[in-house]
């Protein structure tokens, strides 16, 4: 079962150090999940924050204002707001006295400075609370010493320390003394019933900058003397550069240089698989437009270096895997062969998904300035430490010479886990001897992706005496298979004979994580299949799941992370809030439940039919993510995840022909838009358990819930995404 103790390697000893700021106030440097180096000293000047020895800072001014330098990158998942909320809660200051700044500038020693897997809050929960509570205790101890009383007789709340005589001191009045005292051990954390900030609706801390158009994002970053680069990459996977003529490109106003590059990135060959390690051409201009225009004027000749794959080839290869017998076994319980042999009935279905591009609204971009002294990199990347080590390898430079600064990210969805654009910027800057910003066009962004790989699932179940006795899931995927504990998710532990088998086809296409990797499609396949099994057994889909979940309660299997009890509560909440089974005529409901990223989610989609096409009107979502740190932000994540899941299940259509993607901009590639969006109503299961992430878990069940509703409405069982092609091919293309 899921451990409620998420303290991981957190050690209180020496995780926090303080200093008195030259300009007044106290600076607390701390390391999440890690102890500070013995020789680490926090700076006395706020302009010299040292993220080598500490990975986050809290500043308390003499006026009692608190600045928290939020340690995790912000890609839109809200951690820049929610993580400081957790510190502020235990520090016990009023939220309107708290200012949040992006602290994550340099990247050394960050234990988990990665936005991915919906894990920032889960991993930070214990450490952030300990940090806030320890700082509070130091302030209380300092005040007690000033008064000459025992600290245990003092209390602190909302930035004010009070002793038993009723005397008060503000935090700001004791910061100087607090900075000099010993860091206490074993501080007491609040009980959840005493929370004043956690659980409140707190607005995005960057809202004012966003709504007034202030520079925040990587694409907005500029430096003195910076030039822009637009890169011409091979037009298809499997092609390589032979030669090019840049005379027309150089004639474009504002084009400064044209550079063939790739040799430095080639030094990483074998270490990275997220970009094509091949020669590319950079057109450098004094504006983005000049660089883009120059790129269009390049004449390049390409040759085939490998087979040019098409979607039909991928389909053929994946079916070959499913039809064959070369699989890795990822989990096996009981005896699946026997279960199928003894079955009253065997049901088997195959589900198919296409590749998907990420399409962050902010196209990939990065700034690099490679000089003899240091390498300076700035931009939107989810994995700054990895980038730093790759670049130090590319240029054979010491790691401390590479500095990565993160900006706010205009979406991530997994794309910015990979730093191909930053490696390109570094190599171009080195060759051009200039600070360079590489800017992808939307076409570049969609054609040079780290795509969600195409996957096919074949699921087979045996029924005997009205029960599901066996379940066999086969996965055939491009490049890589499901990871970690996914084979131990539901229905593992619920069905006695259970097996997960995986096989993959190695393709030239670059693939990677895409919001809720694997489960973004697996959940659809699985929950469509359970809807079908329920029909076969003459049961309601959620009723069948609730029955099955009884089998996993009290399991001793440590691999099984999801909880029968928590999923049961989540499902029941979704049924209650959606009026399951009690909707008016003309409304059709579909259900799906899925556990992923440590969070339990159940969704009900309400659809209506209009002109023979399903219209999703409402989605009711029940979520168990433990304590909800910021309900306002949490709901935003769930709403976005659900609509993203529906949008891609419905419209995401990305095919290759002879190695080239067939859609590279929004005229041909359809994303969900306002008029296609249902109202999402989110409800949280209330409990006191440690919080888990929300960036991803809302997404996986959405496609299944909609597909199951469409089955009820039309009788048609959708087995392949995108749905739009199965419903009405004439409507698969865009819209005006």
């Amino acid at each position, binding site marked *: 079962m899921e451990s409620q103790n998420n303290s991981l390697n957190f050690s209180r000893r020496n995780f926090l150090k303080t200093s008195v700021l030259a300009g007044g106030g106290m600076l607390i440097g701390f390391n999440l999940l890690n102890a500070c180096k013995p020789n680490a000293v926090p700076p006395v000047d706020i302009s010299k924050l040292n993220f080598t020895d500490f990975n986050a800072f809290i500043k308390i001014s003499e006026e009692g204002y608190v600045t928290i330098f939020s340690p995790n990158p*912000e890609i*839109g*998942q*809200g951690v820049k707001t929610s993580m400081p909320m957790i510190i502020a809660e235990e520090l016990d200051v009023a939220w309107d006295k708290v200012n949040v700044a992006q602290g994550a500038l340099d990247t050394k020693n960050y234990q988990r400075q990665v936005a991915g897997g919906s894990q920032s809050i889960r991993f930070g929960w214990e450490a952030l609370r300990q940090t806030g509570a320890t700082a509070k205790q130091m302030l209380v101890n300092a005040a007690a010493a000033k008064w000459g009383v025992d600290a245990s007789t003092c209390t602190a709340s909302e930035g004010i320390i009070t002793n038993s005589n009723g005397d008060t001191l503000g935090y700001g009045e004791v910061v100087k003394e607090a900075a000099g005292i010993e860091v206490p051990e074993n501080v007491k954390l609040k009980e959840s019933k005493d929370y004043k900030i956690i659980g409140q609706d707190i*607005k*995005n801390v*960057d*809202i*004012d900058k*966003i*709504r*007034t*158009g202030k520079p*925040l*994002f990587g*694409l*907005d970053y*500029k430096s003195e003397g910076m030039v*822009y680069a637009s890169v011409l990459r091979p037009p298809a996977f499997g092609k390589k550069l032979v030669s090019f003529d840049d005379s027309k490109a150089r004639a474009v*106003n*504002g084009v400064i240089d044209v550079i063939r590059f790739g040799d430095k990135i080639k030094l990483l060959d074998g270490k990275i698989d997220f970009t094509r390690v091949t020669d590319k051409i950079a057109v450098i201009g004094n*504006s*983005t*437009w*000049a660089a*883009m225009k120059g790129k269009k004027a390049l004449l390049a000749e390409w040759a085939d270096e490998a087979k040019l794959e098409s979607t039909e080839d991928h389909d053929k290869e994946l079916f070959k895997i499913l039809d064959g017998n070369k699989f890795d076994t990822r989990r096996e319980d009981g005896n699946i062969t026997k279960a199928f042999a003894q079955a009253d009935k065997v049901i088997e279905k195959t589900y198919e998904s296409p590749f998907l591009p990420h*399409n*962050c*609204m*902010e*196209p990939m971009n990065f700034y690099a300035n490679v000089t003899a002294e240091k390498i300076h990199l700035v931009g939107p990347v989810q994995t700054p430490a990895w980038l730093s080590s790759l670049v130090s390898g590319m240029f054979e430079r010491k790691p401390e010479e590479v500095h990565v600064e993160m900006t*706010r*990210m*205009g*979406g991530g*969805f997994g794309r910015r886990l990979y730093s191909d654009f930053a490696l390109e910027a570094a190599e171009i800057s080195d060759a051009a001897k200039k600070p360079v910003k590489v*800017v992808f*066009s*939307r*076409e570049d962004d969609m054609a040079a992706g780290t795509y969600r790989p195409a996957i096919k699932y074949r699921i087979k179940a045996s029924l005997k005496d009205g029960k599901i006795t066996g379940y066999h899931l086969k996965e055939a995927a491009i490049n890589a298979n499901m990871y970690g504990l996914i084979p131990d998710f539901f229905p593992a532990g619920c069905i006695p004979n259970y097996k997960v088998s995986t096989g993959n086809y190695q393709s030239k296409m670059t693939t990677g994580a895409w919001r809720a990797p694997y489960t973004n499609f697996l959940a659809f396949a699985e929950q469509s299949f359970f809807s079908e099994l329920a029909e076969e057994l003459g049961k309601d889909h959620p009723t069948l799941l609730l029955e099955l979940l009884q089998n996993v309660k009290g399991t001793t299997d440590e691999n099984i992370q999801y909880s029968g009890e928590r999923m049961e509560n989540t499902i029941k909440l979704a049924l209650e809030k959606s009026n399951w089974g009690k909707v008016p005529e003309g409304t059709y409901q579909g259900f799906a439940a899925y556990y992923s990223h440590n969070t339990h989610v159940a969704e009900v989609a309400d659809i209506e039919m209009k002109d023979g096409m399903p219209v999703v009107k409402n989605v009711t979502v029940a979520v168990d993510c433990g304590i909800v740190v910021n309900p306002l932000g949490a709901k*935003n*994540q769930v*709403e*976005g*995840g*659900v*609509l*993203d899941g529906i*949008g891609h299940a419905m419209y995401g259509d990305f095919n290759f022909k002879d190695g080239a993607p067939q859609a590279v*901009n*929004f*005229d041909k590639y359809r*994303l*969900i*838009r*306002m*008029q296609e*969006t249902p*109202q*999402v109503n989110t409800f949280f299961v209330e409990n006191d358990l440690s919080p888990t992430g929300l960036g991803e878990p809302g997404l996986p069940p959405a496609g299944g819930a909609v597909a199951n509703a469409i089955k009820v409405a039309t009788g048609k069982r959708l087995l392949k995404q995108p749905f739009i092609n199965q419903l009405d091919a004439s409507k698969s293309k865009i819209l005006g």
Partner: protein
Amino acid sequence: MPDYTLKINGKTTKVTADADTPLLWVLRDELDMVGTKFGCGIAQCGACTVHIDNIAVRSCSLPIATISGESITTIEGLSENGTHPVQEAWKEIDVPQCGYCQAGQMMTASAFLKENPNPTKEEIREAMHGNICRCASYNRIEKAVEVAAKNS
């Protein structure tokens, strides 16, 4: 390269640029006004929306040479200090996730509300259909436009 005189957010500015340079890149690269965002370059996503004489226009596909004396408004000039009812509503509803598309969303919404101060839900959904939000904050955008209409 020719010179152009632009009236942006009430101020007159001179820029030198090729005639085919989209207004978007003049704003971002030449004038350091980066609130207007690049999303697709083909007028399909709305991230680059600005107002030209109060009408919402996709600046990524608008060559600078086609502008002559019209009044250009960008997110930076929609109001002083973010007090336009649309900007206030965006805060009240806490719309953004990543936030990248929101300037374009607000520019579309503000031009729309000027034309149609009391829109129905359907009209709002139709008016905002051209702006993509990849984080899919659509429910909140819809609600924020309603709130802005009420407070305008």
